[in-house]
């Protein structure tokens, strides 16, 4: 029948490319074949709808983000590559994935997976021979109508059980069972549906577990986002009462088949942010045996979304796993909410306080970070810095990430550099811990001060050679230049009460008004902003390499996906960093560190200085 149709002719007719004569010919043909006419009408309708499909706006200004990201990479990557420094944190919108540095996470992950396979091999044996789950696994292979679980042939392993269950999936119509009303979040079946069935008979448990595994296909085909155990056949009342929540995304990013001693559960998430690698890492970290993926496919599957993960897990561990994943999901949702704050609004950080779902302490931390959005005035990044340096690093990174998401890449750069400084100090402290205390005096007292008192929290260990060198280097240069290049040095010292209470007052009064008496601004006080200021120095002086190269000890690469605001800081409000002015004065960092490689100074030298 179709042989008589000229497809090119029909296509040209659809596309309107025919001349009137040919078109009349086709019209005549269609008049004689209602079927074809109906089809052509439908095709034309589809075509028209496709062409009239409204264009959607791109989220944000992608090209602007890209250009900002490129500029940031130009600023950050070059010196880091030269000096072997840390890789950029995070991957903000518009940022290419970091290309430098060692991918420790991947190495650790792969190494861990190799260990996990060994664990899994043993676990499978245990699983198959000694664990009650073997019984469950048998039943997993049963068709829906198979009455007794014990009558089935034994499965060789949990993986076999999984495979059998997948085969069974073709014949069993599982129904989704969902008790979670939050799209994209994972629900612990141990705390919801499954807890309710622990007291039921084993056959029912097995059947419910089997159904839990089988309903995955229904979920993937447009079912709810999260699944747990479903009602057993013969219990339609229970299944009917379960509510279905609309899927947030049709493509689940993570599928976990969790075998507990008495349950087999399938847990799915369509949250695109939850990665399989996270789950695997969690299992490795907590000693949960991984049945799948196998070793030879581990690297590939760790990146893929579709293949399931099969793990052997205790119920308590399962609760912990889901709890952790839930926490991550909520965190990421909060991050997304922050990311859409309009930076054009002068009070957008104040708006952030109103972002729903913020925990109180998180909102409090956010409140302390303000950004002067007026281009005419110096921008202020005001940080809540805890006494613990590790938290301080995290705080700075959080700010850097937040600013990146707010399209303030230049300020993010400053905050990020600041974080590098603190991180280097932290590394130096760790190094120094193996060395006898070099000097005492006021500095030592500051370090021993249990009360966080502002800038003192960031002081480097007295006698730490690289920072001493940094101070001496600054001293050897033009003092006038130092003063000009380091307006914020004083600002990193103890802030005035006014600044503590009213950040905007500090912003309005500009940097000079925030200074403390000169005597208080010793070398270590200035170390906080040395990083940023030294960038300026390194670029504005002819032969001097960037001073930051001096403290680039063996680096710990910063995590490429550092989450934002993971741990809200709790300590008092301290240094103000007036970064905008420094950035305005700073030239882009040149890759001249190679010409004059940084030479760490021996501790003895520094002490002598």
């Amino acid at each position, binding site marked *: *029948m179709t042989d008589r149709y000229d497809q090119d002719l029909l296509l040209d007719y659809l596309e309107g490319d025919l001349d009137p004569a040919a078109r009349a010919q086709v019209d005549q043909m269609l008049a004689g074949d209602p079927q074809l006419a109906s089809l052509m009408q439908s*095709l034309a309708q589809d*075509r028209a709808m*496709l*062409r009239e499909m409204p264009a959607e706006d791109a989220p944000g200004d992608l090209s602007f983000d890209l250009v900002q990201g490129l500029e940031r990479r130009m600023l950050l990557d070059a010196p880091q590559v030269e000096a072997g420094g840390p890789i950029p944190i995070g991957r903000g919108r518009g940022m290419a994935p970091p290309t430098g540095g060692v991918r420790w996470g991947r190495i650790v992950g792969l190494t861990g997976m190799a260990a996990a396979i060994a664990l899994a091999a043993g676990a499978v044996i245990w699983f198959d021979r000694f664990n009650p789950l073997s019984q469950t696994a048998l039943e997993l292979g049963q068709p829906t109508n198979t009455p007794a679980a014990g009558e089935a042939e034994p499965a060789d392993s949990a993986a076999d059980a999984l495979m059998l269950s997948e085969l069974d999936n073709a014949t069993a119509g599982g129904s989704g069972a969902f008790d979670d009303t939050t799209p994209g979040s994972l629900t612990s079946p141990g705390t919801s549906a499954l807890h309710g069935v622990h007291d039921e008979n084993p056959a029912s448990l097995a059947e419910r577990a089997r159904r839990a595994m089988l309903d995955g296909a229904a979920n993937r085909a447009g079912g709810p986002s999260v699944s747990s155990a479903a009602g057993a056949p013969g219990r339609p009342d229970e299944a009917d009462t379960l509510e279905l929540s609309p899927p947030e995304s049709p493509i689940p990013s993570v599928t976990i088949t969790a075998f507990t001693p008495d349950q087999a559960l399938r847990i799915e998430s369509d949250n695109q942010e939850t990665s399989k690698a996270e789950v695997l890492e969690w299992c490795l970290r907590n000693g949960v045996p991984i049945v799948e993926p196998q070793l030879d496919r581990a690297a590939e599957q760790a990146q893929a979304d579709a293949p399931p993960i099969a793990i052997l897990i205790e119920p308590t561990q399962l609760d912990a796993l889901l709890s952790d994943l839930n926490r991550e999901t909520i965190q990421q949702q909060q991050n997304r909410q922050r990311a859409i704050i309009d930076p054009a609004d002068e009070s957008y950080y104040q708006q952030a306080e109103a972002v729903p779902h913020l925990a109180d302490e998180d909102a409090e931390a956010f409140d302390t970070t303000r950004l002067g959005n007026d281009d005419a005035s110096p921008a202020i990044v005001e940080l809540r810095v805890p006494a613990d340096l590790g938290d301080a690093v995290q705080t700075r990174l959080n700010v850097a990430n937040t600013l990146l998401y707010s399209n303030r890449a230049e300020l993010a750069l400053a905050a990020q550099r600041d974080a590098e400084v603190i991180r280097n100090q932290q590394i130096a402290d760790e190094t120094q811990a193996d060395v006898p205390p070099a000097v005492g005096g006021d500095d030592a007292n500051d370090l021993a001060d249990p009360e966080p008192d502002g800038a003192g929290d960031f002081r480097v260990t007295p006698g730490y050679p690289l920072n001493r060198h940094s101070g001496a280097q600054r001293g050897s240069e033009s003092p006038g230049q130092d003063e000009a290049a380091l307006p914020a040095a004083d600002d990193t010292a103890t802030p005035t009460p006014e600044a503590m209470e009213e950040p905007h007052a500090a912003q309005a009064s500009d940097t000079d008004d925030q200074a403390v008496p000169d005597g208080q601004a010793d070398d270590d006080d200035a170390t906080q902003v040395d990083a940023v200021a030294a960038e300026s120095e390194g670029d504005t002086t002819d032969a001097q390499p960037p001073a930051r190269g001096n403290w680039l000890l063996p680096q710990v690469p910063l995590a490429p996906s550092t989450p934002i605001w993971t741990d809200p800081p709790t300590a008092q409000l301290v240094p103000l960093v007036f970064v905008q002015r420094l950035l305005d004065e700073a030239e882009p960092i040149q890759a001249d560190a190679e010409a004059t490689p940084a030479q760490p100074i021996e501790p003895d030298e520094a002490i002598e200085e």
Partner: protein
Amino acid sequence: MNQSSDADLIELIQQGDRSALGTLLDRHQQRLFNVALRMVSNRDDAAEITQDAMLKICEHIDNFRSDAKITTWMTRIVMNLSISLLRKRKVRNHISLESSGPATNGEDAAASLRHVLDDSREPGPAQSVETTEMLEQLKNAIGRLDDDFRAVLVLRDIDQMDYQQIAETLDLKTGTVKSRLFRARLALRQEMQKLDKTPSHQAPH
């Protein structure tokens, strides 16, 4: 917006004017995003693809030859990234033309046409579905198409390219483009009919 101004921008970029690069990207980002969006059916993925594409454009714009159209080149990058993502993440639906019978060999357009004609004997309820639902259904149907079919449909109907541009973008002959386009339209209709029959897409009675 016209091609000559694009060429001027490229010339400026190749002479070292980086501000022209921002202008060029800004001019095309919306179009590229929509092409990516219709390919991968996910806004976040589409945004990421668009940015990756723009990054590639930035990296290779200096080597761009003026004898090719910049729009075609850009779209080709987006298409390649989209298809790569689809394959990597297995975004496309398992129900593809390969498993749906008539178009199994991908070349048997006549058989495909016959199949659709057979199905068209049963008028579906799509006629009575609201426009918004139809659009949603159309998006779903596009998402279920084979990558090749989806690409040619997106370029033709969403990006409104002519056959020659599509051929350049997909590196195909013009005749192949036309043939594939017709089969893609049939496949789309087929998917629409399938969706009509599913309970979730039944029109309210």
